[in-house]
């Protein structure tokens, strides 16, 4: 097993009466950005704390590069993590925050200046962290995660509170890390944040994995064999298409979703009926739609149980 992996295997964790994890199992691999997605309370943060050896699992194990995190002599050289960007002493400067972390890993101060430059925080580095915006804190947290140049990077909800510019920067940054064969695990409760960035998604709900697959496969399965048809004459079009046995639903004004009909057939049917249309194409599900399809059961169960 390469150094650049996180393996989570059968984690169980209870906090008093509440069960947080029920057999959480997945692997984050090198060269890939793995999205770790699920509604709030699904067990993402708990899993990450167990990976870092902060919490003890009741059962199961979590390995970083094949070893338990607690057995690592210089853990930040194996795994860089950002759990909570606001976990800073407000009176300590960002630079000093990185300096003590560097000292704890036996690293020099030159490395601190390197990562500060890498995240673009040099100008604010000597100011007290209490005055940082959330975006600056996120950058500082990412600098801390990268400090010892680890093969695995794990970020918990890094996009929270970031401005659009920051989000773009972070996506490119994480993609570049994966491009250098790092394993990147990013949690989010919003699938949209991962679209266009994650190679793999681990979808979790109620403490276990619901789906663990490549993003391309997930979208394909959620897209199904649907077509989208844009037309001003929706009722005419619907009548013509239904006559072929296809299922038609109106999803929006001037927009129909058609199931059970190849594209060529649909074009010829509409042309034969003389119905004008401005767009006719296979429907491509968003990652979010796929996610909602997957988590609906888990969410329903949760709201049902709590009501």
């Amino acid at each position: 097993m390469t150094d650049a992996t996180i393996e989570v295997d059968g984690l169980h964790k209870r906090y008093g009466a509440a069960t947080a994890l029920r057999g959480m199992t997945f692997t984050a691999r090198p060269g890939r950005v793995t999205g770790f997605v699920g509604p709030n309370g699904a067990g993402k943060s708990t899993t990450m704390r167990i990976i870092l050896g902060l919490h003890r699992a009741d059962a199961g194990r979590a390995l970083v590069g094949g070893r338990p995190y607690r057995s690592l002599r210089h853990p930040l050289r194996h795994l860089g993590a950002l759990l909570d960007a606001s976990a800073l002493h407000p009176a300590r400067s960002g630079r000093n925050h990185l300096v003590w972390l560097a000292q704890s890993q036996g690293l020099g101060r030159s490395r601190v200046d390197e990562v500060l430059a890498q995240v673009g925080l040099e100008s604010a580095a000597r100011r007290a962290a209490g005055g940082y915006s959330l975006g600056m804190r996120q950058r500082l947290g990412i600098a801390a995660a990268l400090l010892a140049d680890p093969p695995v990077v794990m970020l918990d909800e890094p996009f929270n509170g970031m401005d659009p510019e920051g989000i773009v920067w972070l996506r490119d940054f994480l993609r570049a890390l994966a491009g250098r064969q790092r394993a990147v695990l990013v949690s989010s409760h919003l699938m949209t944040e991962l679209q266009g960035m994650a190679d793999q998604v681990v979808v979790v709900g109620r403490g276990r994995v619901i789906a663990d697959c490549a993003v391309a496969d997930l979208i394909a399965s959620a897209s199904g064999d649907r077509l989208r048809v844009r037309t001003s004459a929706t009722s005419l079009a619907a009548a013509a298409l239904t006559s072929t046995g296809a299922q038609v639903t109106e999803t929006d004004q001037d927009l129909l979703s058609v199931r059970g009909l190849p594209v060529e057939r649909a074009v010829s049917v509409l042309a034969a009926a003389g119905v004008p249309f401005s767009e006719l194409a296979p429907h491509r599900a968003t990652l979010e739609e796929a996610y909602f399809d997957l988590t609906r059961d888990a969410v329903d169960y949760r709201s049902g149980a709590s009501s």
Partner: protein
Amino acid sequence: MRRILSAEWTKFRSVPGWIRGSAVAALLIALFPITGLGGGPPEQAAPIPIGPGGGPVVDAYYFVHRDLTGDGRITVRVAGLDGVGWAKAGLIASGGESPGSRYATIMVTGGHGVRMQHDYLHDRAGPEPAARWLRLTRSGDTITGEASADGSAWRRIDAIELPEATRIGLFVAAPQQTSGLGSAPGVATAEFGRPELTGDWSGDWTGHQRGARTATFSGYPTGASGGFTETGDGFTVTGAGDLAPATRADLPVAAAAGDLLLGTFPALIVIVVVATLMITTEFRYALIRTTLSADHRRGRLLLGKALVVGGVTFGTSLAAAALTLPLWLWVVRRLGLYVFPAPPGVLLRASAGTAALLALTAVLALSVGTILRRSAAAVTAVVVAVVLPYLVALIPFLPSAVGQWLTRVTPAAALGVQQTLTRPPQVDSVYSVAYGYYPLSPWAGLAVLCAYTAATFTLAAFLLHRRDA
């Protein structure tokens, strides 16, 4: 461990409030005595007798004497002594008239048998406590004291070089009676047989209350007075006072060097706050997760924090106390206040002990902060544990046993490391915390705090290890 230490030191020095707190604590130790300077020196009409050892003494007794030239001897039987405890009746060779002069005595006491004492500090018990025959012999410069149960078989107790002794005779003294936290003048009356004299004695038997105008003489009880009467077969002598090192109760207006470390209390509160925040802010800002994911050896982490805050506190407090204590002593003495003398070694011990006390309290606060994870609760708990027992021990209307017990078994026992007064065994006095006397020796008191700190630190390390972060 070196990496943890350097990381924790960086954490400590990079929070300006903590550095300021440490500096303020040192300044409080250095400057707090200024709060006691108001009002000027107390009215002190009577002189304080200073003994040959340099310390203040009580030099007051009723003295019935003649003068001896050359070698000689005086022998007397003490037929009765109406007095308790350290009430004294016997023979004395006085080395001079000025208060605090040298002397040698042999005596019977109210409750401690036959003793031979000299020069205020030295006390030796006789081999036969019930002996009632006493004699002093001068041979050259040496005064020899002997006691006998029957007047024929004599046993030597001690011999003292005292070339200046000329005036020799009977004496009676009765120290202050202590009751609870107060004291009252004492008085004793003794029946002596007729003294047998050998050698060249001159003058008549004359009596006077010695030391009547000294600051350490507490006087006679209301209605009583000193004096002597010659009876058919001897003398009846009534006297008050003592021949002993002065205690704080004898000199209430004087100060002890340890009093000048009173800045310890405000400094302690500041240090407790800083040491507590070192760990509770980590919990508050969830920084503890970053810390523990950088190094999972949690016991060592706590040890690293303890060494940093303890080391900083010890260094700054020691510098503040050791540098300013001699300076304040000089200032206070220049202002006319009498301060019980303390040798440099004792001052250094009080300073180093104060620094150790504050460093240990810092580690205690760090440990309690780790256990409770809340700043306010932890600060309150530590201040209450360390300072409150001391304050309660100062309450005047509490039985002194309560104060002694509190400063023996609670962390406040460590304040005993600041005591610069010693408790002479041959003096019953008011040895209260308010007067600067502690039940335990300085290092034993510090050891009590050490034990509390070690136990709390162990519990904190255990909980930090066991709890999910």
